[in-house]
């Protein structure tokens, strides 16, 4: 079963690249990729409900992939499916040139393969390989239009990501040296056995953490995030902000530091500190932004801070909260980036000083952005509230009340900058825009409504999500 999530997109990738003219027609390409992603969403939803478990994996005999599917992977697959689907939807209404469509879909497929494999893997080097594949596909995606900003954003992202990779490689080398293997199980055993190579393990953990913090884009290493997010084309920024940096940075952090490595006190404190600084610094930084997408990027840094903070608490409940926040954040941040795409398509800009009074003209965008913003700020009953609440309760229970209080009060800051955004963009006087005003496309409107619905549903039905995916996580956390 797990290898299907890798092989299906791979087969599709091969088919798309076969030299038949009719296969390249847009009419065949969009539905194929979209359908594949919908299938992924459906399967990853049903799997934890015990429906898909009976199906034997026919490929397991031929390939020794060593993939494993647990509830953490399955919720990640769900997120990847949803966000990639939305990104494809948005792109379908923004890209029309045939060559570009072809490139875009190929790269999307590659990045989906990369992310799917990343979340299923149980070997630390293969993990690196697929994180790198995802990153590569995304570099090309961001730079695809080759504008000045796009190229600059890509270059910054590329260099920092490569430096992060070097950190991770060095760490992998130390693990190999200490353990003699690169599989998660062996590394976990080495941590548990407390052998004489403890120094090498510690060194590796520290280096890996550095690499991952760059990939996550949390505060001391956040320089590339706003550039890359705002430079990318609309559909790509949805993918990038929604899943790519989350899977290749935050997921790996969750997987390794939550379930494989054993955190000592110093590491916990580091994570807590990095988390809280990210939350506060990025929230303040976003207060001063004038570009919609850059503001969202800083908000993203701040929200990732919550996940890192929860990981620092190092309790199963905090881990549950972190994964829940991951899910919510992926959904509502994608929603907000789709809103930005909608504004960009309509007005040709995302500069908030040049936009105003769109509330009456773009009703769907306005309403759904409100849901996204309130959810980000953690206002109940939307989904963001529950995950933040769990994280904060976990911090309290773990005996870190100061961090909990700061994290909670930072939501007021989040609310403040989002209210100012809302005021500038959707209320106030209508500012005349130079670009021709076109009607919002079906693809964008549909994805806005879809993501907003998921946000509301996850808020009202948080119990279902907790019971299905998240509470079982407590077993895999040590």
């Amino acid at each position, binding site marked *: 079963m797990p290898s299907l999530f890798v092989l299906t997109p791979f087969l599709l990738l091969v088919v798309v690249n076969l030299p038949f003219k009719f296969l390249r027609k847009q009419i065949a390409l969009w539905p194929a990729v979209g359908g594949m992603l919908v299938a992924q969403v459906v399967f990853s939803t049903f799997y934890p409900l015990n429906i898909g478990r009976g199906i034997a994996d026919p490929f397991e005999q031929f390939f020794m992939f060593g993939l494993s599917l647990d509830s953490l992977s399955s919720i990640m697959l769900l997120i990847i499916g949803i966000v990639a689907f939305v990104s494809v939807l948005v792109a379908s209404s923004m890209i029309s040139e045939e060559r570009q469509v072809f490139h875009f879909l190929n790269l999307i497929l590659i990045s989906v393969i990369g992310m799917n494999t990343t979340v299923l893997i149980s070997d630390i080097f293969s993990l690196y390989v697929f994180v790198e594949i995802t990153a590569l596909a995304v570099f090309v995606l961001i730079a695809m239009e080759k504008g000045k900003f796009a190229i600059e954003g890509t270059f910054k992202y590329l260099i920092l990501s490569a430096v992060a990779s070097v950190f991770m490689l060095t760490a992998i080398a130390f693990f190999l040296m200490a353990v003699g293997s690169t599989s998660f199980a062996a590394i976990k055993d080495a941590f548990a056995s407390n052998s004489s190579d403890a120094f090498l393990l510690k060194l590796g953990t520290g280096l890996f953490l550095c690499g991952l913090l760059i990939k996550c884009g949390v505060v001391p290493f956040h320089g590339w995030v706003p550039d890359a997010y705002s430079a990318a084309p609309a559909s790509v920024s949805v993918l990038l902000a929604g899943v790519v940096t989350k899977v290749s940075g935050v997921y790996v952090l969750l997987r390794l530091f939550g379930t494989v490595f054993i955190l000592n006190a110093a590491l916990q404190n580091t994570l807590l500190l990095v988390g809280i600084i990210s939350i506060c610094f990025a929230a303040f930084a976003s207060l001063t932004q004038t570009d919609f997408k850059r503001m969202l990027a800083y908000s993203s840094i701040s929200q990732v801070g919550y996940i890192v903070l929860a990981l620092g608490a190092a309790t199963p409940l905090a881990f549950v909260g972190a994964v829940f926040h991951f899910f919510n954040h992926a959904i509502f941040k994608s929603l907000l980036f789709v809103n930005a795409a909608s504004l960009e398509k309509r007005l040709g800009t995302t500069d908030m000083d040049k936009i105003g009074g769109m509330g009456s003209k773009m009703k769907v965008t306005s309403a759904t952005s409100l849901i996204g913003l309130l959810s980000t700020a953690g*206002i109940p009953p939307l989904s963001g509230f529950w995950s933040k609440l769990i994280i904060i309760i976990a911090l309290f229970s773990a005996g870190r009340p100061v961090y909990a209080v700061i994290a*909670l*009060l930072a939501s007021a800051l989040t*609310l*403040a900058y989002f209210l100012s955004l809302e005021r500038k963009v959707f209320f*106030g006087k209508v500012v005349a825009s130079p670009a021709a005003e076109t009607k919002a496309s079906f693809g964008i409107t549909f994805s806005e409504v879809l993501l907003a619905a998921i946000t509301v549903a996850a808020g009202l039905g948080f119990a279902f999500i907790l019971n299905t995916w998240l509470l079982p996580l407590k077993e895999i956390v040590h």
Partner: protein
Amino acid sequence: MEKQLILFLIVMLPVAGAFFLPVVGRFSEAVRNRLAFLLVAASFVLSLTLLPSVLNNQVITISQNLPLGFNFILTADALAVFMAMVSSFISAIIIVYSFTYISHYENRGEYYLMVVLFLGAMMGLVFSGSLILLYVFWEITGITSWRLIGFFREKQHVLRADKAFLMTVFGALLMLIGFIRLYVETGSFDLQVIKEAVKIHPLSGLTVALIMAGILSKSATLPLHTWLPDAGVAPSPVTALLHAAVLVKIGVYVFARLFVVTMPLDIPWMNVIAIIAAASALVSAGAALIDTDLKRIIAYSTISQIGFIFLGFTVSNEIGVAGSLLYILMHGLAKAGLFLCAGIIEQNTKTKDITKLGGLMYTMPVTALSFLFCSFSVMGIPPFGGFFAKYMVIAGTLQAGHLAIAFVFLFGAVLTILYLFRVFNMVFMGDVGSSSAKEGSPSMVFCVALFAVLSLLGGILISYPNNMIAIVIKQMITGSIPT
């Protein structure tokens, strides 16, 4: 079983129904308006049907266990039903008033959505039996009032709406910290569990202070009161709803629910809160004396009266608490009437500045009379309802032996009389200021007159509410103070 269904419907009808209103509004405005009224009225009628069993000392509970102790619990006891009836009744009349008031503005669909959702959230808050549910509904009222204050979309309005939202959310976050501390100490958000746990381990002062911060911010009491006068930019029915009937009473109600019923506070805490309430009452009464904006004056008056309600709860004897409950009812009726009058005046004269108004007595006599009646009730002049409430609160204070505080409040009451007479004098007496003024639409005037009449009847027929409150008190006090 059936009672539980009713309880569920009281909350869910307006909450879920609200979202259909904009959809219905696309086809027919009239149907939407009536549906909005029906949803709110249904809440009132259904609460009324719960009354007999609740007065028989029954407690109706719906409980659904959810993971991590975030249980969904609705509890209907006498206090909750009383509060629900008061707010849903006032809201229903306000909706009738807004049929014509709001009919020539944009975004009507959003208006009805927010008002009905607000009422639904209020019902949920009143009946919620777990802290987390209470917090959820608390924030929903925050969201809806934010959109309602910024209803006219002008820059200044939106800024003030944001300010109100931020202040209440900040307070609510502090309160949430208090809730989480309780949760970590007792392992549950369930009020019943907490009630038992608190009997063994008394509350820590920090938790009380944090929760109080939330309550004070929502009920616009002294240190956190500035958002309320600014919120006067909202449409008048909204301000009536927010200030008088529902929003600020949330804080008072939660105070009663948590600190009178569930986990009674110590005497020193009660004294501190009484002093805060006294300061709040005096300062805002002073502000009301000098302000010239009609709606701001009434808003300051609300802050001042909220002080009285707090006072009644803090003395924690039967007569004081009964006075506070009566106060919630009477003040709600009278203050809603005042705001709706202000709405009529504002709409017909296009100004809220009382120095520019005058002589409206002759052009809008019914409104003038209603305003006077409602003012009498707020001032506490017998035989209006407000008199009995004020009398009982101060009597309770004296009975508890707080002579000084009672005097301060008496002074506050005198100030109330002063500033309300000043307003009445400047708006309705004297020369005819603007000639174009005329009486509002029939349905609006009817609503105003209804509130005025009810304020009077509430006083004359004081025995009916009083009997009911007596039962409520019995349940509250016997539940809270073990004898």
